[in-house]
């Protein structure tokens, strides 16, 4: 299975090279549509921060203390006063050491591999009702506060473009970034593939009161 995947990747590369020789790629600007992006336009939208080294982090800084103030105002209503999560909104704190457990708890502290990613996400997507409205300083402060809630940085930590990339997240080294699939060895047996006596129903959805109705108006079933 591995070899067939590799083969198809090679084949893909081959086809691309071949296409390149038959129909050479158009020169840049061949169509001439659109306008050149100005430095000011790029600066306004170029918000991404790279997770593993913090490339793209802007000037500014924030303390844990300032972060606690911004958090109380902007975040606590959904994420809970101490990051415990209200309703079904994400919990931000806890769970360290549980990733191999039967019921792991995935939070910023237990799961996220890179601290600059936290800055990037708060900056681009939070607070949910008014995303990308916080100042860089406030985003730094919130990042510092959430890391501090997780005991990853001390109370006196100041988050900025130099300090954040140096924070080592507890789960940093637990990711593999290449896909090991296919990781199952199913074979297409056609007959007498198992002993019928071994076929047992191990679980059924029957009788579990989890499924919303699939006819009539939308179901409004409440959280279990």
């Amino acid at each position, binding site marked *: 299975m591995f070899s067939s995947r590799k083969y198809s990747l090679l084949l893909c590369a081959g086809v691309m090279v071949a296409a390149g020789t038959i129909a050479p790629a158009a020169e*840049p600007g061949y169509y001439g549509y659109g306008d050149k992006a100005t430095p000011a336009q790029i600066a306004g939208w170029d918000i991404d921060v790279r997770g593993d080294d913090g490339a793209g982090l802007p000037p500014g800084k924030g303390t844990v203390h300032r972060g606690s103030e911004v958090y109380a105002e902007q975040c606590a209503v959904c994420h809970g006063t101490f990051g415990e999560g209200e309703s079904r909104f994400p919990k931000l704190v806890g769970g360290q050491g549980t990733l191999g457990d039967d019921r792991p708890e995935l939070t910023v502290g237990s799961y996220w*591999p890179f601290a600059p990613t936290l800055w990037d996400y708060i900056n681009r997507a939070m607070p949910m009702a008014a995303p990308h409205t916080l100042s860089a300083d406030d985003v730094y402060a919130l990042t510092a506060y959430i890391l501090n809630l997780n005991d990853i940085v001390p109370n006196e930590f100041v988050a900025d473009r130099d300090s954040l990339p140096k924070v080592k997240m507890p789960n940093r080294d637990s990711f593999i970034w290449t896909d090991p699939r296919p990781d199952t060895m199913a074979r297409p047996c056609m007959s*007498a593939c198992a002993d019928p006596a071994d076929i047992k129903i191990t679980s059924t959805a029957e009788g579990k009161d989890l499924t919303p109705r699939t006819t009539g108006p939308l179901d409004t079933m409440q959280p279990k």
Partner: protein
Amino acid sequence: MRPDLWRSMPVVSKLAGTRNPLARRSFLRLGAALTGSLALGARPGNAETPQASPPSDAPWSQSIGAGVVDRPYGRPADAEAGVIRRNVPWLTAGTESSVSFSPLQDLHGIITPNGLFFERHHAGRPNVDPDRHRLMIHGLVERPLVLTMKDIVRFPSVSRIHFIECPANGGMEWRAAQMNSLQFNHGMISCAEWTGVRLSTLLEEVGVKKEAQWGMVEGADGAHMNRSLPLNKCLDDCLVVYAQNGEALRPEQGYPLRLLVPGWEGNVSIKWLRRIKLGDRPWYSREETSKYTDLMPDGTSRGFTWLIDAKSVITFPCPEKPLDRPGLYEIRGLAWSGNGKVRRVDVSADGGVNWQSARLHEPVLSKALTRFTLPWRWDGQPALLESRAIDETGYVQPTITQLRASRGSNSVYHNNSIQTWQVKPDGSVFHVQLS
């Protein structure tokens, strides 16, 4: 024009004179009865319902119908009002960062109607003004560009049929059978004909610098949703699309512009696409570190698991569409693979002991839904129906037991296991998992 203005036309009003008002009222009652019976599962045969089957002539055969442009856009028949996307209210904190499921049990082809295409939003559905929407392409490129929608539509266009599947489709079933429903177990897949411009065309136009290895794609929604993609995938088969099944994208699918990454998990097909930046390394955004990564039993995680492996499901019968009585049926289903075409689908009625290959229906397209059918005479005995897809790479769809053996039950995403439907002697159908 008022809808009933035509009645004042001399000929029509004369025609409508005596018979039509009564027929019209009857028709309305019938409509209500039909809708009610479908919605509430009540038995038909209301005493007031006029006879419509032979030998009687139906009321709609003895009246004049609504004229053209009565519904200028058009909509499904009233009796189909229950065929809608549905959500699981208890699953998420709100509906803005949530998902809805396509009603696969009521669909009949490989194309998902635009109003029924499943939804996954990370910050709700934005209302984007197409005149003010812009796509910026920059980073490691020779000539960074800002494109309007008019600019984008002017580029050479292509149309392709591809599915999009959320990798969390079936994610609630890793530990045990939970949702007794085709819609809620498999409805985070849909398939459409997409029209737009090849991403490679746009990247050639800006000129890719030789150091570039990755692209970062970003949406204009409140989440500024972003993902990293290897440049070779961007240049291979990705599309920047503005149309879906022949009309402009629906807002729920990214109007006016989205990325389409064929065969890969749906969240990389960024909706409301506003920016593409090329770089030399991936970005490790929140959506590719804290989410859309797969936690293994030993506590390690897999990232960048983009591929949708081969998968299939029987869409009839299913919990929503049980069997009436013993007799001959056509088992129907859908199969797909992110790795190319579906080569074969096998069907078992005994929980995987014996299999028979189903008929694949044309068109069998790469990275698209493929229909399969198999005639089946149900003898009224208990049955365990399963389907198993094999794609053109030779990959065989696994059982949930095989997946658990490899990945445990906490990896949330990429559950492409064989679905088992338990058929009971009364014809009812339940979602079960087998040993």
